[in-house]
């Protein structure tokens, strides 16, 4: 199951269980989940809405404790310990009272950068992602798409060993999404940081990652692990490859199957 | 402090505080005169006149936060019953100048006319007792008086609305009415009951001061005495001293009040400030009889004439 067994994986999630509520209202969200992300590996998680992906991220981030099981980063058990990951949430979550540049700088400073380093790095990269002229604007005047791009930048520049991306491009338009994916790919292939990505787009998972982990409906278990057969560096025209649709259908079918077996409450 | 007298002793003056009982008025003129004409300084005192908070002077004097205060007989009587060690050292005005006032149009010229009228006061039990005593003299029934509490509203506002008569000091409110040309019927307490001829106001200090620093008490009373004597002899000048010290006072009222009050400070007493035991016992007995006191007053300890300067 794990490609990098000799090295210590950057992230190990081992037999984690999580439920919310007590007594009759108790709801199992994650039932025995294990996964790893190796050094420099790009892993995607695909799963239905409500399958507990955000909950999993919160446990890795140390915000909630798993009911059972361990979370290790670099081999060190970090259950409930914060500050080990950089993060890009589903919704941009920019502080509305800080400028775009100020938001990015703050994240870097929290991760330990000096004020000066943070400012330089930020202005350099805002230029690179084409938002140079928005550095001094407040997030409120940016469109949803632009906000999400700033949010991505903020996660990218933080120095932690593991990046958690929770549906990062969901709010971008198809075009920008593709160009961001391409761009992320090129950066990532040059730097090989460890990434755990939640995405709803099977295409995105196929395009970006080394492995795809397919989660079931809650209580979530790993349904399938799919090693993406494309090499690196990848072409950004992957989606025009006729094989691509086949892979896509395969992942889709795994998901589809689990849903028809599930309780089906939240799906038609 | 405004005019340091050149005749004054040059060694360091002893700082003492005197707390007033209310906003500065002509009851206090002697203190201001003594301060500003240097009488206190001549006795080695640097007196600071302090205007009181809501709670008056008594507790501050008793606790030692201030050395002297302006008080009145009823308050000292109640204080002593409550084991608050206050002592009156001088009567500022010899006879009670307070009474029940009403616009003449209401026709209240005698206590029996209170019947069926509305009295505006503070809601204290002593008020009803005093009114009852006056009416008793005329065989009238206090039960027929409508008692209303008017709090801080002034006399002139009160009688505009709901209220027929109220309890005032003639030297201040009565004089103001004269200045306005409003005719008042005035029923003085002293006209109907000797027991109600109590001292108001008085100068007070604590037992501790008397025990520990009698010379300072002596100096203070001596200075105050000179101040009030000056006010008795030169009412116009004394009024100007007060107005100068407190320029925000109603100057016309101060002048007129000072003139009216000049011969009331000492009145029939052998010297200014003199207090009589019977006045203290009479009023305390009266209060006790009316259930206004929870104990008997040891009147001898409530006041002293010992610090009054000897009349030459």
């Amino acid at each position: 199951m794990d490609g990098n067994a000799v090295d210590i994986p950057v992230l190990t999630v081992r037999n984690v269980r999580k439920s919310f509520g007590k007594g009759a209202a108790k709801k199992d969200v994650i039932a025995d989940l294990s996964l790893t992300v190796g050094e420099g590996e790009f892993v995607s998680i695909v799963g239905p809405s409500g399958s507990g992906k955000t909950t999993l991220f919160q446990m890795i981030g140390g915000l909630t404790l798993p009911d059972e099981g361990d979370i290790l980063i670099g081999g060190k058990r970090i259950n409930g310990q914060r500050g080990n990951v950089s993060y890009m949430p589903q919704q941009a979550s920019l502080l509305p009272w800080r400028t775009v540049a100020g938001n990015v700088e703050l994240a870097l400073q929290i991760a330990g950068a000096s004020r000066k380093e943070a400012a330089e790095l930020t202005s350099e990269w805002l230029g690179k992602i084409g938002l140079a002229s928005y550095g001094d604007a407040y997030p409120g005047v940016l469109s949803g798409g632009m906000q999400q791009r700033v949010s991505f930048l903020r996660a990218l520049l933080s120095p932690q060993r593991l990046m958690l991306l929770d549906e990062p491009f969901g709010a971008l338009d198809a075009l920008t999404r593709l160009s961001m994916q391409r761009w992320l790919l090129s950066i990532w292939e040059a730097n090989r940081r460890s990434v755990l990505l939640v995405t709803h787009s099977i295409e995105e998972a196929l395009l970006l990652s080394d492995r795809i982990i397919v989660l079931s409906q809650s209580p979530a278990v790993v349904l399938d692990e799919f090693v993406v057969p494309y090499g690196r560096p990848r072409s950004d025209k992957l989606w025009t490859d006729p094989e691509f649709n086949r892979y896509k259908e395969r992942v889709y079918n795994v998901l589809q199957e689990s849903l028809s077996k599930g309780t089906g409450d939240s799906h038609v | 402090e405004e005019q340091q007298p050149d005749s004054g002793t040059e060694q360091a003056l002893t700082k003492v505080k005197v707390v007033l009982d209310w906003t500065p008025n002509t009851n206090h003129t002697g203190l201001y005169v003594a301060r500003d004409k240097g009488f206190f300084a001549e006795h080695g005192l640097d007196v600071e006149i302090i205007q009181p908070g809501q709670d008056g002077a008594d507790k501050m004097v008793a606790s030692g936060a201030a050395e002297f205060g302006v008080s009145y007989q009823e308050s000292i009587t109640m204080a002593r019953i409550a084991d608050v060690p206050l002592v009156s050292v001088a009567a500022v005005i010899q006879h009670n100048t307070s009474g029940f006032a009403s616009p003449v149009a209401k026709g209240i010229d005698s206590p029996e006319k209170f019947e069926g009228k509305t009295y505006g006061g503070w809601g204290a039990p002593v008020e009803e007792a005093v009114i009852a005593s006056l009416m008793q003299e005329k065989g009238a029934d206090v039960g027929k008086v409508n008692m209303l509490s008017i709090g801080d509203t002034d006399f002139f506002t009160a009688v505009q609305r709901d209220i027929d008569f109220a309890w005032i000091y003639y030297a201040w409110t009565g004089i103001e009415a004269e200045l306005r040309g409003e005719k008042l019927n005035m029923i003085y307490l002293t006209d109907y009951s000797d027991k109600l001829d109590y001292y108001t106001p008085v100068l007070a200090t604590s037992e501790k001061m008397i025990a520990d620093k009698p010379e300072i008490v002596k100096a203070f009373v001596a200075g105050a005495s000179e101040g009030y004597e000056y006010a008795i002899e030169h009412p116009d000048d004394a009024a100007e001293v007060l107005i100068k010290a407190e320029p925000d006072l109603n100057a016309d009222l101060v002048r007129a009040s000072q003139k009216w009050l000049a011969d009331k400070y000492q009145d029939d007493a052998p010297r200014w400030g003199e207090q009589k035991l019977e006045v203290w016992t009479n009023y305390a007995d009266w209060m006790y009889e009316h259930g206004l006191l929870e104990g008997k007053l040891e009147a001898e300890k409530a006041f002293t004439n010992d610090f009054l300067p000897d009349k030459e």
Partner: protein
Amino acid sequence: MGNNRIPWRKIWPPAAVLAALLAAWQIAVSAFGTAEYILPSPLSIAEEGINVGPRLLEHTLATVGLMLPGFAGGAAAGFLLAALIHFIPGARSGLYPLLVLSQNVPVIALGPLLTLWLGYGVLPKLILIWLVCFFPVSVALLSGLNDTDPKLRNYMEMIGTSRWTMFWRLELPHAIAHLFSGLKIAASYSVLTAVVAEWIGSEKGLGHFMMLSSSGFQTARVFAAVFLIVILSLAMFGLVVLAERICVRWKPDRKGE
């Protein structure tokens, strides 16, 4: 949630703090030998309070009878005024300064006027309490009404929500946290304001009782009344907190507190 558990968890910390304070007070008074008429010890206050218990109760009821309609009327007036200002375009800038102004006419100037116009009944006292209570409610509600989530507002506007529905369904529920913080302030003030209002002329009530006790040098009674005032205030505050809990059910549980 556990509605049964919360009260205890909430009540013991302040109770402990209060008990500690009282103990410290008792010890300090004994240690420094403070005179009774300045600062009586908690024990002698309690003793005196029990001695005059029935009378104290009567006065307390009178104050409560003034405070409740005062608070309710003030809060209602504050609510209406804020809603009015919110609804009438331009009213905010025109009337807001008047609200501030209303808090700055001292009783010394206002008392006689109220008396003159309204006599010595309960009305001028109620008006004084209203005047104090409406203000924090209005200010808090106005700032809440002005702070609606733009995304929600945008949605509601898109589907053509009327001004009125907007107010009831979006702006007011959003402002409810603000409203309650204003109500808490008003509740905290309502008791003391009732007491102060009694000073402008009253034959009963804790304010009247304090006045007489104070002039009679019965400081222990003054403090007994202070205790009752504090207790009434806390009760009022607690009522508002309770009302908030009932009204704001949708807030997700917070960690920590």
